[in-house]
């Protein structure tokens, strides 16, 4: 059985002392920063990314993955305890989780979230083990045209799920492409949009864009709406769910895990979609419908499981196809490129210890989350109650030092200022910066594939339509786009996002 050999290799890699230690450190730091109100996984990972530069590739990805789950779980903790979601996928946790906390069941809500996440993490890891290798096998057959179309599909899918106006989601993608042009053109060696600045010769660094638009932009926006935020973290008495609770959460956890795993694989999917979809499904299926919104334990268990499952399975398109389905995965791809690994189907065959080690460490990371978070919850509560105006100068300091350490150059910090400004402007004008980041990462790859495909076909664009795989991918993209444009779905999409606001 090849699978068992692979898994054994994974355990061998993940269980080395160094990798275990960095996985633990990642989960710990990720949670610690993730619980801080107003800091989502993207900002957390961007901020901590420079810490991993000196590490070997496997270790750094294992640590980053740990940071991701940590941040995700930390966000839910904050959402449950103080009703302040750090990021969009944690919004669902505020609905019933905070209500449970107000009724003195904060501990149970946190434990439910942790148990649900762990179960979901375990099952999602299995899903990855089963589905990633065949998918990578298919992807090995892909040529330039197929890759190009796949990336088009990925971008379209990410737009469909973006908040607000479709036009501006498209517009942000164009801006992302535009930013991707900066630097040396691979084919001709010509400098584009670098204005003779040598630091721009290698292009813009995605960490600078992510930290500027997500980090600085968010801080400024938060300060603009700053209110005296009395953080009354709920008291935590009892952590253990009762037998009755356990009975009630088994099915929601499993349903959440399966729906979440599925939605996570889709391009453009991931944790947020998974959490929202599962919550509304559970609300319809539950025998305790009336309790939803007033502290139903199912309303915590299902979306928390789904969001963790989705977070895990969104690694599948990233690891097998090299396509990020959300901004977090875009950051992961950026981290891989920094480590000198070209993401794509060949990672599995050429770097099996990295591939399987990362997958096994996902499960270990989830186990650590479960073991770590419940005992440490007192510390997280203390962290949450630090007022924002003490917090953001510290965040800014880490951003500045982190960006400096990319190239050991202050030029990058100046660049970050520009993106911070743009990030705030986009936020004020109602344009989501997430599609821009995706397009920025995908843009240069797409240009490469597009040029290569058209070179081979002597400039005939029909190659994208008449190659069966490529054609099918484009058809799916068009269908997705039409679906969003249909008035009925447009309306429910607006409603889904309004529920969040």
């Amino acid at each position, binding site marked *: 059985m090849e699978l068992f050999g692979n898994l054994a290799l994974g355990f061998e890699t993940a269980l080395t002392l160094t990798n275990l230690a960095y996985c633990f450190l990642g989960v710990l730091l990720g949670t610690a920063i993730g619980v801080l109100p107003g800091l989502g996984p993207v900002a957390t990972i961007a901020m901590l990314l420079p810490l991993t530069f000196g590490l070997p590739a496997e270790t750094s990805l294992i640590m980053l993955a740990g940071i991701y789950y940590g941040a995700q779980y930390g966000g839910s903790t904050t959402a449950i305890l103080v009703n302040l979601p750090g990021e969009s996928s944690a919004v669902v946790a505020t609905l019933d989780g905070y209500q449970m906390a107000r009724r003195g069941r904060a501990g149970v809500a946190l434990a439910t979230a942790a148990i649900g996440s762990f179960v979901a993490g375990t099952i999602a890891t299995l899903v990855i083990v089963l589905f990633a290798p065949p998918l990578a096998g298919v992807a090995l057959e892909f040529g330039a045209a197929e890759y190009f179309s796949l990336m088009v599909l990925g971008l379209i899918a990410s737009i469909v799920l973006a908040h607000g106006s479709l036009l501006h989601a498209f517009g942000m993608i164009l801006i992302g492409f535009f930013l991707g042009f900066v630097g040396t053109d691979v084919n001709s060696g010509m400098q584009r949009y670098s204005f003779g600045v040598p630091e721009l010769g290698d292009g813009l660094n995605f960490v600078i864009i992510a930290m500027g638009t997500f980090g600085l932009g968010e801080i400024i926006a938060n300060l*603009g709406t700053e209110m005296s935020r009395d953080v009354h973290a709920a008291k935590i008495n009892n952590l253990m769910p009762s037998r009755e609770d356990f009975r009630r959460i088994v099915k929601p956890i499993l349903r959440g895990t399966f729906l979440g795993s599925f939605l996570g694989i889709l391009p453009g999917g991931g944790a947020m979609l998974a959490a929202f979809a599962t919550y509304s499904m559970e609300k319809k299926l539950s025998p305790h419908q009336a309790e939803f919104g007033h502290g139903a334990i199912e309303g915590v268990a299902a979306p928390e499981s789904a969001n963790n499952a989705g977070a895990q399975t969104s690694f599948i398109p990233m690891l097998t196809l090299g396509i990020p389905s959300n901004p977090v995965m875009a950051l992961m791809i950026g981290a891989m490129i920094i480590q000198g690994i070209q993401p794509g189907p060949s990672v599995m065959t050429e770097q099996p210890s990295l591939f399987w080690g990362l997958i096994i460490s996902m499960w270990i990371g989830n186990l650590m989350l479960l073991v770590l978070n419940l005992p440490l919850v007192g510390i997280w509560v203390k962290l949450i109650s630090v007022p924002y105006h003490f917090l953001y100068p510290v965040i800014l300091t880490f951003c500045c030092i982190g960006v400096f350490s990319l190239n050991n150059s202050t030029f990058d910090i100046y660049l970050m200022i520009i993106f911070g400004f743009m990030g705030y402007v986009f936020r004020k004008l109602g344009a989501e910066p997430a599609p821009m980041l995706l397009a920025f990462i995908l843009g240069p790859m797409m240009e490469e594939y597009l040029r290569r495909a058209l070179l081979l076909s002597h400039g005939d664009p029909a190659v994208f339509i008449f190659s069966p795989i490529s054609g099918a991918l484009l058809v799916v993209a068009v269908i997705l786009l039409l679906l969003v444009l249909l008035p009925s779905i447009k309306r429910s999409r607006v409603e889904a996002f309004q529920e969040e606001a």
Partner: protein
Amino acid sequence: MSPTIRAPKEFWMGLLYLALGGAGILIAQHYPFGTASRMGPGYLPSLVCGLLMLFGVISLVRAVRLTGEPIGEIAFKPLFLVLLSVFAFAALSLRAGLVIAIIALVLISAAGSRYFTFSWKAMAGMLVLVAFCSLIFVRGLGVPLPLIGTWFTG
């Protein structure tokens, strides 16, 4: 009836697209365009910037046709102070050193909050941050930032 802007967010996004796309297209004129089968470095930038300008026009039309919500209050003070604090860090970190750069960053950015008051507790927190960054980033991770910059060491 002269057109009035009823969707200000659309209007400003439109201007932004037009400005970016317009500047991008002008600059791309200097790059060889090539043909579809042999694209030059200017081919796709021209295409993308052209689309950006098109989106700009669409947004401007929407700004007049649709009614949108107002932009809302712009947080000028936090915007200015946060960006200035980062600028100060970048300008000071090598010249004055990390210690002073962090102090400047923290003090300037903190002034952007409406809850900014001078307190000894906050000062102590800032010094802990300086010590933490010096130890972890500079000593521990070897980030080449001088603690005391060239202004003082000559």
